[in-house]
């Protein structure tokens, strides 16, 4: 055969038989497609989110009155399981799911880095999540009373973190090494930048949780020769994960989601983009909290570094809010739900970091009970989920090829904002009970409002699922579903085919799609 002949495998004849169609379940189980992996993460984390807020509400209801309706063991596992679940089963995987789907598209890659590892991480996470839930259900959660089940629960937490770390490595590597030509690191979309910075912080801090959990496991498994495995001290060793500043780290990708949503839905180039990159980066640095473990370092809250981090983290949030508002003022904002959800998330986060800054001041004596930090936790998680819901609504047309019901999204703006405030603010107010006697009398009322907020947030997550499902009835969309897309994910079909892109032009700015409409001169 001459070299100039057409290669048989690339011919258009009937020589190549079509591959047999696989069952959908087999396709799902064996997939390395980042889009499928991302959607499974998103759907599973939203389902866990509904359950997580209901569990939190149940624990809150147990706090009402003098005698709760749960046994001590059940209350302990419900509390720790709810807190850990909202982080490791809901907020982090929701962000990871969006990142796994969107980051390869935003950087112009045809796949996520290490697709088989990403798929392995997904199934490891799902399996570990199932084991974690079952172990908690049979009195085996953190601080639980059933020895073997507690061991299994501890191993499931290691599995969850391992899966999250592997998935984060895949996404971060995609952002670093698979960018399309011309897309320098300062030109990456802000969601990709936030995922890279946030993911880096997760990679540096979540392994420390593994260290804590492994120590607890070894001690617990070998008869508790030290205090690590004792039920009463287990939660204290890992509670830093849900305290400030570490809890802020899990909302970092949300800052990128808001930034991308604001730019697209106002149709303007992001104003002061350098400041936004700096704001997200400095927020990430200031949220490193693995070193602040009160169990091993009881005076950590008196440390100047901890106080400085808690105070300074307000600044990047203000910087980001200023940047988003400037962009909105320069553009023509459209009243779409992702924009509302993004701004609601920003406001909740501002409330959280300001409340966290007050926590620093010793004369206020807010650290005398855990209730104030529980309020900060509720606000941060609500902010993270609102940002995640904004991301789901924003990228739903890309994921499904159809428009999500914007009315549900708009209702969700009120639900997340109201739910977040109701779930968090009463607990913040109760934190001042040491200064105002009347607040102690109102404790039940305030707890009751917070429980109502938890239920509202569960409803908000449920509405997000409904909005995602509603896309099946929505109208088909073009590649650029919003018509004002700026980044590369809006340059491929909706939903993207295998391989995502054909040939891509060299990127010359952070907004390559705007460049296509308004060609810029090469420097």
């Amino acid at each position: 055969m001459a070299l100039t002949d057409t290669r048989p495998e690339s011919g258009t004849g009937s020589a190549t038989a079509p591959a047999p169609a696989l069952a959908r379940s087999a396709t799902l189980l064996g997939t390395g497609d980042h889009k499928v992996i991302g959607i499974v993460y998103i759907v599973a984390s939203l389902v866990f989110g509904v359950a997580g807020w209901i569990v939190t509400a149940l624990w809150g209801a147990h706090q009402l009155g003098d005698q709760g309706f749960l046994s001590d063991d059940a209350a302990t596992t419900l509390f720790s399981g709810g807190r850990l679940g909202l982080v490791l089963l809901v907020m982090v995987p929701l962000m990871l799911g969006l990142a796994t789907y969107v980051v390869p598209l935003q950087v112009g890659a045809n796949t996520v880095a290490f697709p088989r590892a990403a798929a392995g991480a997904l199934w490891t996470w799902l399996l570990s999540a199932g084991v974690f839930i079952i172990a908690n259900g049979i009195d085996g959660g953190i601080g639980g009373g059933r020895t073997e089940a507690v061991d299994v629960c501890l191993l499931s937490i290691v599995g969850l973190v391992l899966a999250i770390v592997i998935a984060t490595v895949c996404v971060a590597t995609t952002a670093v090494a698979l960018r399309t030509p011309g897309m320098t690191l300062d030109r990456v979309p802000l969601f990709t930048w936030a995922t890279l910075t946030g993911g880096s912080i997760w990679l540096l801090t979540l392994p420390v949780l593994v260290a804590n959990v492994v120590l607890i496991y070894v001690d617990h498994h070998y008869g508790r020769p030290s205090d690590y495995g004792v039920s009463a001290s287990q939660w204290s060793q890992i509670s830093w994960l849900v305290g400030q500043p570490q809890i802020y780290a899990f909302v970092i990708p949300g800052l990128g989601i808001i930034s991308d949503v604001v730019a697209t839905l106002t149709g303007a180039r992001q104003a002061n983009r350098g400041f936004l990159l700096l704001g997200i980066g400095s927020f990430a640095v200031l949220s490193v909290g693995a070193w602040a473990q009160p169990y091993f370092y009881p005076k950590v809250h008196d440390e100047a570094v901890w106080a400085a981090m808690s105070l300074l983290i307000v600044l990047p949030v203000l910087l980001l809010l200023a940047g988003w508002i400037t962009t909105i003022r320069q553009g023509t904002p459209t009243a779409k739900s992702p924009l509302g959800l993004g701004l609601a998330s920003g406001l909740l986060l501002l409330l959280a970091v300001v409340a966290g800054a007050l926590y620093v001041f010793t004369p206020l004596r807010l650290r005398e009970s855990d209730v104030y930090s529980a309020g900060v936790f509720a606000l941060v998680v609500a902010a993270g989920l609102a940002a995640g819901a904004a991301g789901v609504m924003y990228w739903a047309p890309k994921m499904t090829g159809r428009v999500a019901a914007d009315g549900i999204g708009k209702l969700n703006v009120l639900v997340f904002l109201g739910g977040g405030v109701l779930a968090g603010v009463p607990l913040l107010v109760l934190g001042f009970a040491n200064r105002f006697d009347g607040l102690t009398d109102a404790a039940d009322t305030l707890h009751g409002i917070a429980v109502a907020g938890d239920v509202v947030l569960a409803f908000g997550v449920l509405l997000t699922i409904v909005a995602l499902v509603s896309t099946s009835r929505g109208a088909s969309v073009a590649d650029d579903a919003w018509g004002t897309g700026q980044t590369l994910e809006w340059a491929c079909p909706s939903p993207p085919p295998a391989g995502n892109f054909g040939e891509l032009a060299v990127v010359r700015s952070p907004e390559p799609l705007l460049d296509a409409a308004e060609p810029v001169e090469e420097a």
Partner: protein
Amino acid sequence: MAATHALPPAAPIQRPRVLVVGAAFASAAAVMVFIGMIAIYLAERADTLASGDTWLPKGAQISLHQPNTMLFTLAMSVVTMQWAVSAISNNDRVNSYLALGTTLVFGLAVIVMTTYLYGLMGLDITANTQSVLIYTITGAHLVMVVLAVAFVALMAFRALAGGFSARQHDGITAAAIFWYAMVAVYALIWITIYVTK
């Protein structure tokens, strides 16, 4: 007359350094597990010493001979690992096989020596806090050594099968990064657990 067709374009080569970047991220995460554990170890030891007690319980003896031997072995393995990277970068396959093989032998020697040291230490894991900490940290490092040996062995087999060249040797570079991280962690363990006890 035969029709003339252009050949289809060659498949684009994978963009470089994906595996290297991924290995760097993963190694950083692995190192952080040990930094967390060692920080707890140091905090506990400081508390114990501040209360006037000795850190190691009576009857426990941790000889320095085996830890020192392991340190020197791992130090040499760093040289052989870099030798492998350098050799494959110059398309010197024979030297890269030799270097990877030697590195694997060093790694296996460390595994054997660690288990031997466990037998000598006289620490009962069910006895006290010190035992829990020492076995957890050194045991976790043993796991890391096994993973590093498996990673290097995998890359060695791929090299033997004709993989890697001067132009594309990311696999061996990635294995080297993880190996160096493992050695760095051991250096931390050596100074905190074995020397300053």
